[in-house]
């Protein structure tokens, strides 16, 4: 019997296991994984419930132990419903098992054969020539099926196609053939993914081929289970598929990660700048410098996903700046960091002050450092920060963030890709504000000097992903913290009873992107309720919230609305807006958190508007 590695893992906490990524789990046997999951759920019961529904045309139940294992590691109490075998559209309807399960996510595990009857056509000749013509038809069929489900649920829909069991019909020659199956499959995937992102909200095409590529075809399929039980996966593939699925769940149950705070020495380069100097550190085309170059490239990739980078290093500022500015192989330059703390203060203090400067909560930070000492301090002093200690072997450094679930993304907006730039603009604004204060200027003249223009859009369908993202990510300036999926936002936009209003802010330093959102529920002809009112922390301190609220109240007054109600629901994080409605002419109703304002008695007063030029665009008419 193999030596049981469970004792080694069972001695660790869930958090410590999670922090190590899940690569270690590849070597666990099935009973070992099972025993570890049982042990962890007894010692640290998972706190976050997540409901998964699976529609499948091949065996999915056998994934359960693996899903359970990874869910437990991520602290998720996973409840899974497997629909009866087959692509049964009845499952989409009210009264079905799936509907009763009320899933947070619906996973479609399909094969190519399921999405068009011709694909299962046994005549290979017909297959090769006609397949191209069938592509559009197939994509349309998938879309129709998913739309049926979408009509009854706001759950995230995840679609995945099993990679082909057989190699291409033409074997090695496939790549050169005009009828290449591999190329055809790639274009099918592209069309499917494009169609999903353009037509259905909260839908993800999950490319299982990537798992096949990562672990290799010989290790992916087990033909015995496939032919005997229609279960395609080896334990290795099942484990990896489950891990990635659970990562998708972890992104939605945990606070969004926003900041990657990086140590410098032995993290961004090998060696210590203060001792080794610019010519002595390992950074460049040779080993081990090339591993650090690749790690920096990967950090840039993460920036493209919308995470912002910050430096948190115990060093002399000028030493680090010399590398950032002048080292020929340094990839991350000064402009890539939204903020930096390069000093000799404790990193705990620096992380707290970074959080203040960026206006982002500590629970949105991921801290990366090579020092176990620093990592331990942050773990114990700032437990809300996710800590990743870089591996001691340089070859393992470039991939060390690949397993961090919260660094995966489910959507990508224009704001995400520009984020660092937006924070850099904010830094300049703060500088101007300091300068203005130093000159004894008042707030209004500072605001006027920014020459702000606010563009408000009402019921626009253009940026649903961003609007949903704002409800999901915004914690501080958020009066009710009600979170909405893309589908729910779309439903509000299409409803007569709801008004969805968002704004962008332009000033002399640049455009903010969409940073504010308000949802209004029309209760009657003359009455409206503010269901939510939120603003990204990026624009706090510029009176944009007042301009936005007054502009909307003015807009409603013109529509003949007189009664406006609002609610403040306190959370641990939104104390910033505790008196928001009080300060804007609303009357509190006792201590209930409810507010009201009668627009006929107290119409919005233009004189109170902050110095921001406002433009309203209603795209719903």
């Amino acid at each position, binding site marked *: *019997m*193999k030596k049981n590695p469970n004792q080694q893992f069972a001695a660790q906490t869930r958090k410590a296991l999670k922090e190590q990524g899940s690569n270690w789990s590849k070597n666990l046997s*099935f*009973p070992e994984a099972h025993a570890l999951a049982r042990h962890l759920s007894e010692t640290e019961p998972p706190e976050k419930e997540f409901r998964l529904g699976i529609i499948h045309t091949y065996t999915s*139940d056998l994934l359960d132990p693996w899903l359970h294992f990874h869910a437990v590691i991520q602290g998720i109490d996973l409840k899974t419903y497997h629909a009866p075998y087959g692509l049964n559209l009845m499952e989409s309807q009210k009264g079905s098992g799936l509907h009763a399960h009320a899933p947070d996510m619906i996973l479609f595990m399909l094969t190519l054969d399921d999405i068009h009857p011709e694909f299962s056509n046994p005549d290979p000749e017909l297959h090769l020539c006609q397949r191209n013509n069938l592509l559009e038809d197939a994509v349309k069929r998938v879309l129709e099926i998913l739309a049926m489900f979408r009509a009854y649920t706001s759950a995230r829909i995840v679609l995945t196609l099993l990679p082909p069991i057989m190699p291409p019909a033409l074997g090695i020659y496939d790549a050169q053939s005009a009828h290449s199956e591999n190329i055809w499959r790639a274009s099918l995937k592209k069309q499917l993914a494009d169609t999903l992102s353009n037509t259905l909200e909260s839908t993800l095409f999950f490319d299982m081929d990537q798992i096949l590529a990562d672990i290799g075809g010989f290790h992916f399929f087990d033909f015995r*289970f496939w032919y005997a039980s229609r279960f395609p996966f080896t334990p290795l593939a099942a484990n990896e598929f489950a891990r990635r699925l659970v990562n998708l769940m972890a992104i939605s149950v945990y606070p969004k990660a926003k900041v990657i705070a990086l140590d410098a020495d032995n993290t961004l380069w090998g060696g210590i700048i203060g001792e080794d100097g610019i010519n002595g550190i390992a950074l460049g085309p040779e080993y081990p410098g090339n591993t650090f170059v690749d790690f920096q490239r990967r950090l840039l990739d993460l920036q493209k996903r919308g995470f912002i980078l910050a430096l948190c290093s115990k060093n002399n500022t000028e030493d680090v700046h010399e590398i950032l500015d002048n080292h020929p192989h340094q990839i991350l330059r000064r402009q890539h960091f939204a903020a930096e703390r390069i000093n000799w203060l404790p990193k705990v203090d620096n992380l707290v002050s970074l959080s203040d400067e960026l206006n982002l909560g500590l629970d949105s930070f991921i801290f990366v450092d090579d020092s176990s000492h620093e990592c331990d301090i942050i773990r114990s002093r700032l437990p809300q920060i996710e800590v990743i200690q870089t591996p001691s072997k340089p070859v393992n450094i470039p991939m060390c963030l690949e397993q961090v679930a919260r660094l995966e993304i489910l959507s990508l907006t224009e704001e995400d890709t520009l984020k660092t730039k937006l924070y850099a603009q904010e830094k300049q604004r703060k500088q101007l504000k300091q300068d203005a204060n130093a000159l004894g200027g008042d707030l209004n003249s500072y605001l006027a000097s920014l020459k702000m223009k606010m563009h408000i859009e009402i019921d626009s369908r253009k940026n649903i992903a961003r609007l949903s993202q704002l409800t999901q990510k915004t914690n501080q300036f958020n009066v009710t913290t009600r979170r909405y999926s893309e589908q729910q936002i779309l439903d509000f936009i299409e409803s007569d009873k709801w008004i969805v209003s968002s704004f962008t802010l332009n000033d002399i330093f640049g455009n903010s992107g969409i940073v504010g959102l308000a949802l209004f529920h029309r209760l009657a002809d003359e009455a409206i309720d503010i269901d939510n009112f939120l603003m990204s922390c990026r624009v706090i301190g510029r009176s944009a919230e007042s301009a936005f609220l007054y502009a909307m109240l003015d807009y409603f007054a013109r529509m003949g609305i007189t009664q406006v109600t609002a609610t403040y629901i306190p959370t641990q994080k939104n104390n910033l807006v505790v008196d928001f409605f009080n300060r804007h002419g609303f009357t509190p109703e006792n201590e209930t958190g409810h507010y009201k304002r009668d627009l006929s008695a107290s119409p919005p007063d233009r004189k109170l508007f902050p110095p921001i030029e406002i433009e309203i665009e209603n795209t719903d008419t």
Partner: protein
Amino acid sequence: MSVLEQVIHVVAETLNVSPSTITRESTAENTNGWDSLAHVNLMIAIEQTFDIALDVEDFAKLNSIQSIIEFIEKNVT
């Protein structure tokens, strides 16, 4: 651990039951939770634990503690 104990441990772990409920006389027929799905997981578990390779033909035969023990004693050196 004897082979019997090891097999009981693996079966109990896979079926998610207490080892005390599994004996040499346990079979798929008389054991709760030992259904066709659990059986596939059990085959994986036995392969990994005893480092042996099973054929599809073996799956159906290994439906009791006794038959699993005999198979392991014959195939594990």
